[in-house]
């Protein structure tokens, strides 16, 4: 008997390991023309793990604080061996993770995977997407460069526009009236402690729900398969799908490594609270659609300030997005078309406004 087998038997005697693996063996992944969309959640999870690992490595040298943060990131990039690569992987992986999380959400909407009984899986996923954006927003400030400084000023001011709780919320986020070193310390805390803790809990819940409820079949196919069970095609999750997922991760790692090495993330200019915002300033691409919208809303719409209207509208849309699964019909043959329509409109709006925001002066 090999050492591996004896170790496995030893563990099995004590932990009844096989019972834990059993549900994984029973789990099956539906096979159809759109099955490749099922890889996206796993790839997002993989990128999150990369974020945790590279984030821990960056923590070994990074120092929060208005007088040290920029210099410490500069030190990582110029003095520490492969520091530039670790930071570049962290930054690229963050961007890819936002992209795959968005793609995962839209694939779930278009394949209608959020239907009963998976409403809570979807809600936890949308909250995770918001957390991912929170990671992006808080992490962006940490190098303390000019772009990040103004992005944080605008972003926290947007939070400040929320009626009633806005001002206290803004002061809480900034650690004072203005964006200063106190803001950096807070954002550092959110980025490396609060958000990872929350995200880990939600990811566990999300994966547990996926495990418990199995993988959704698109409604059209579900109706066909229910009418004619002989048509049903599935693949075992473990090990068949899992091995394919691992290959997808390997490809993702290749793409990530290539991007990080060929296009190292730059650092920019150190933030100075007493210089004007530079011309052509823009946020990260995943906030561009909101940025461009806020830019286009006039200063007053009827009697409401333009930015308050914009912020309230995005807030309401975010809430509706979170609750979208609860508007869907339980019957797979009578799914609501307007939800798909809304998803197409949202995708077109986000994509269109992002491109417009990128090209606009």
């Amino acid at each position: 008997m090999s050492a591996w087998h004896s170790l496995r038997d030893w563990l099995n005697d004590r932990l009844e390991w096989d019972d834990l693996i059993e549900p994984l063996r029973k789990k099956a992944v539906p096979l159809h023309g759109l099955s490749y969309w099922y890889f996206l959640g796993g790839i997002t999870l993989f990128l999150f793990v990369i974020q945790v690992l590279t984030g821990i490595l960056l923590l070994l040298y990074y120092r929060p604080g208005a007088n040290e943060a920029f210099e410490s990131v500069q030190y990582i990039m110029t003095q520490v061996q492969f520091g530039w690569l670790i930071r570049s992987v962290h930054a690229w992986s963050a961007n890819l993770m936002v992209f795959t999380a968005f793609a995962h959400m839209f694939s779930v909407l278009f394949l209608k995977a959020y239907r009963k009984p998976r409403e809570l899986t979807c809600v936890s996923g949308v909250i995770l997407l918001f957390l991912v954006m929170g990671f992006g927003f808080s992490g962006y400030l940490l190098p303390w460069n000019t772009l990040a400084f103004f992005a944080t000023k605008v972003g926290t001011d947007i939070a400040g526009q929320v009626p009633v709780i806005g001002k206290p919320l803004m002061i809480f986020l900034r650690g004072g009236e203005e964006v200063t070193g106190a803001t950096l310390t807070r954002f550092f805390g959110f980025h490396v402690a609060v958000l990872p803790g929350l995200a880990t809990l939600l990811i566990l819940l999300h994966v547990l729900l996926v495990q418990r409820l199995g993988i959704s079949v698109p409604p059209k196919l579900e109706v066909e398969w229910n009418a004619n069970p002989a048509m049903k095609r599935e693949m075992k999750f473990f090990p068949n799908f899992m091995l394919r997922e691992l290959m997808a991760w390997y490809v993702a790692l290749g793409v990530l490594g290539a991007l990080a090495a060929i296009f190292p993330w730059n650092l920019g200019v150190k933030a100075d609270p007493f210089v004007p915002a530079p011309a052509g300033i823009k946020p990260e691409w995943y906030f561009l659609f909101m940025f461009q919208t806020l830019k286009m809303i006039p200063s007053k719409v009827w009697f409401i300030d333009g930015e308050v209207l914009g912020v309230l509208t995005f807030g309401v849309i975010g809430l509706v997005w979170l609750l979208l699964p609860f508007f869907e019909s339980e019957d797979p043959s009578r799914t609501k078309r307007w939800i798909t329509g809304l998803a197409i409109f949202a995708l077109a709006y986000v994509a269109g406004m992002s491109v417009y925001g990128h090209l606009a002066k």
Partner: protein
Amino acid sequence: MAGKDPGTAGAGNQFSTPVPRRRVVEALLGSGFLATAVAFFYPVLRYLVPPQESDLGGDSVVAGRVGELKPNSGKIFRFGQHPGLLIRTASGEYRAMSATCTHLSCTVQYRDDLHEVWCACHNGMYDLNGRNVSGPPPRPLESFEVQVRGEEIYVRRRREA
């Protein structure tokens, strides 16, 4: 009889009638837990609110020196914790205003090509008196009083009339 005593329950129905003593214990325990929760969360919530910082700039600051600014140019100066904008117009006059955009609080700048104040973040425009003239800013910039004393340019908040 013991059953008539409101403080104790009769032997036959002690499980079906409310027992005031139990309620007292529940109320004591409940309020105890509540007090513990308050004692726990109140300091935490207060801790989250950053202490008020006094605006060290006071009411008046030296924004620059005479000769530092050419006509038709501007500079950012510190007004306590906040940025201010000092402009020397093409005719040589000094103007000062808050440099925090009233839209989403980016720092504005003087555009010598347009003779206007511009916010790069969302393309907001103000005139030389700080009035919002185009783009998303909802309100004018707070304008300050400028006084030239000797070689120094003093800027101070306008007093309410």
